[in-house]
């Protein structure tokens, strides 16, 4: 019964293996007949400027999201925890709706909002706040994408922290109330310390979703070649279309290895806890 799934999973593993094989060649536009070069392509990559900034941006976008998404998720979940059920459900839906829309569309909408004349800057001018040159300088371009990322993915952190908070035995919260603990105390001394699971899940997912960002930098950056927004994933796409095939494969392998290093421990943690209920 598991055969179809195993088949498609097998295809995936095959693709990954093929990538590894291709990454050891020097196949590209200029060498049409590929030769085995060992780690040659990798060492070539490490000296590429684009690769370095791609890696840097990938790190910024994923670690940055973890650094901001977690506390923001805790903050919002902490507020929602104390509010009535119906209201809480509505709010969670609002924080999650960006995930129901294509990231390509989200990127598009935000590009308009980043318009210097008519976008959010217009509103900022209206209330006499300093405006931000969004997509016109390198730093603010990164900041802009970062903002969109937070908007798009923080809902995940809210969802998982809220779930962890709600999983804390109700009588423990009531005991804390009777012990005269206020809302902040309950949040910081009881809810958060007992929400390790929420932390692991949201950190892992925020990382994995941000590490594979493609549509947002592609759309907001106006294509895969915008240096300010180039990540490892857009870089491998760029390498592919400029026919540096082995370099693209090597970048893919690096991306896969980094992601796998997070996915496998997460899967093992998950199967123990959620499926075997150990």
């Amino acid at each position, binding site marked *: *019964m*598991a055969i*179809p*799934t*195993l088949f*498609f*999973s097998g295809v*995936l593993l095959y*693709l*990954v293996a093929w*990538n590894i094989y*291709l990454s050891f060649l020097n196949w590209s536009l200029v060498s049409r007949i590929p030769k085995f070069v060992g780690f040659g392509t990798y060492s070539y990559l490490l000296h590429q400027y684009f690769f370095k900034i791609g890696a840097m941006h990938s790190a910024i976008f994923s670690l940055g999201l973890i650094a901001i998404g977690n506390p923001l998720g805790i903050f*919002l979940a902490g507020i*929602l925890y*104390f*509010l009535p059920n119906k*209201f809480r459900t509505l*709010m969670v*839906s*609002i924080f*999650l709706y960006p995930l*129901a*829309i*294509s990231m*390509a569309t*989200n990127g*598009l*909408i935000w590009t*308009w*909002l*980043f318009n210097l004349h*008519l*976008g*959010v800057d217009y509103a900022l001018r209206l209330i006499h706040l300093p405006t931000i040159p969004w997509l016109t300088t390198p730093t603010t371009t990164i900041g802009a994408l970062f903002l969109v990322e937070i*908007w798009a993915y923080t809902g995940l952190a809210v969802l*998982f922290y*809220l*779930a962890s908070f*709600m999983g804390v035995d109700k009588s423990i919260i009531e005991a804390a109330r009777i012990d005269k603990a206020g809302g902040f105390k309950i949040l910081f001394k009881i809810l958060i310390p007992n929400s390790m*699971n929420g932390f692991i899940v949201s950190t892992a*997912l925020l990382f994995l979703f941000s590490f*594979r960002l*493609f*549509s947002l930098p592609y759309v907001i950056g*106006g294509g895969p070649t915008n240096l300010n927004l180039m990540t490892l*994933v857009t870089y*491998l*796409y760029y390498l592919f279309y400029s026919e540096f095939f082995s370099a*693209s494969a090597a970048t*893919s*392998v690096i*991306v896969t290895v980094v*992601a796998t290093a997070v996915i496998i421990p*997460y*899967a*093992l943690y998950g*199967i123990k806890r*959620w*499926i*075997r209920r150990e």
Partner: protein
Amino acid sequence: MNSRLIKYIILEIIAIIIAIFWLIPLYSMLINGFKTNFEATATPVLFPPKVFTISSYITVWGEMKRPLINSIIIAIPVAFISTIFGEMAAYFFYVTSERMPAVSNTGFSIISLATFIPYQATLLPLIELEASWGLFNSYQGLIFALLIFYMPTAALLMSIFIPVIPKYLIEAARIDKASDWTVFWKVVFPLTIPGFLATMIFVFIESWNNFFMPLVLTSSPSLRLIPVAERAFTGGYGTLYNDSYAAAVIASIVPLVVFIILGRYFIKGLAALGGGAKGV
């Protein structure tokens, strides 16, 4: 008024303010498509139109119709096939999880890998494979590529939903000599319908919204899917058109309506990525 009530009200106000910020992009997408092209390029994005018009929708509709149909042709079978077979695999992992922990650990790791891997990283071998099998630039090729990632995703989500069935029910059925096939259709499937719907809706929305696969696996305009078609309506970097807003609305209307009507299933599906998140 007591102080507790005041605290509640303050918290609600904070939550509502943040939620309003969260809704700004949706709001601006919805209002700007109803502007005339002149108004769209001359009035602030955050201001509603002075004159309501659907002219941009009419312009865009002609070119979005085909991609819309294409997306339906792709996303519905992907969601359905993924979920059915994914659930079967999840059932297999569930019944083997105690007898053969190594098998289920490996299986679960692989489906997690397929779910979370940056799928863009398979670009080169995927295109080679599709080209050599004659799947490149076809409906089947798109469906095939999406199934590589979404069938394991469905198996992962169903692995979270299936354990709500007590093991003894399955064991009782097996002691009664029911085949795996019978146990699956008579016991497992009926008891996991909410999880099945959650998974199917999640996979549907994800495959509908997938931008990368149709971008790289199709070349002919007649095969365009909606997220790719929509991008054709932007005049590159930062240019504002009323048409692009309308295209964005048409591209998102299906997942948005599904989200509004069946959002709790989608959220359940998302939650399953992290172990279920009951009670939210």
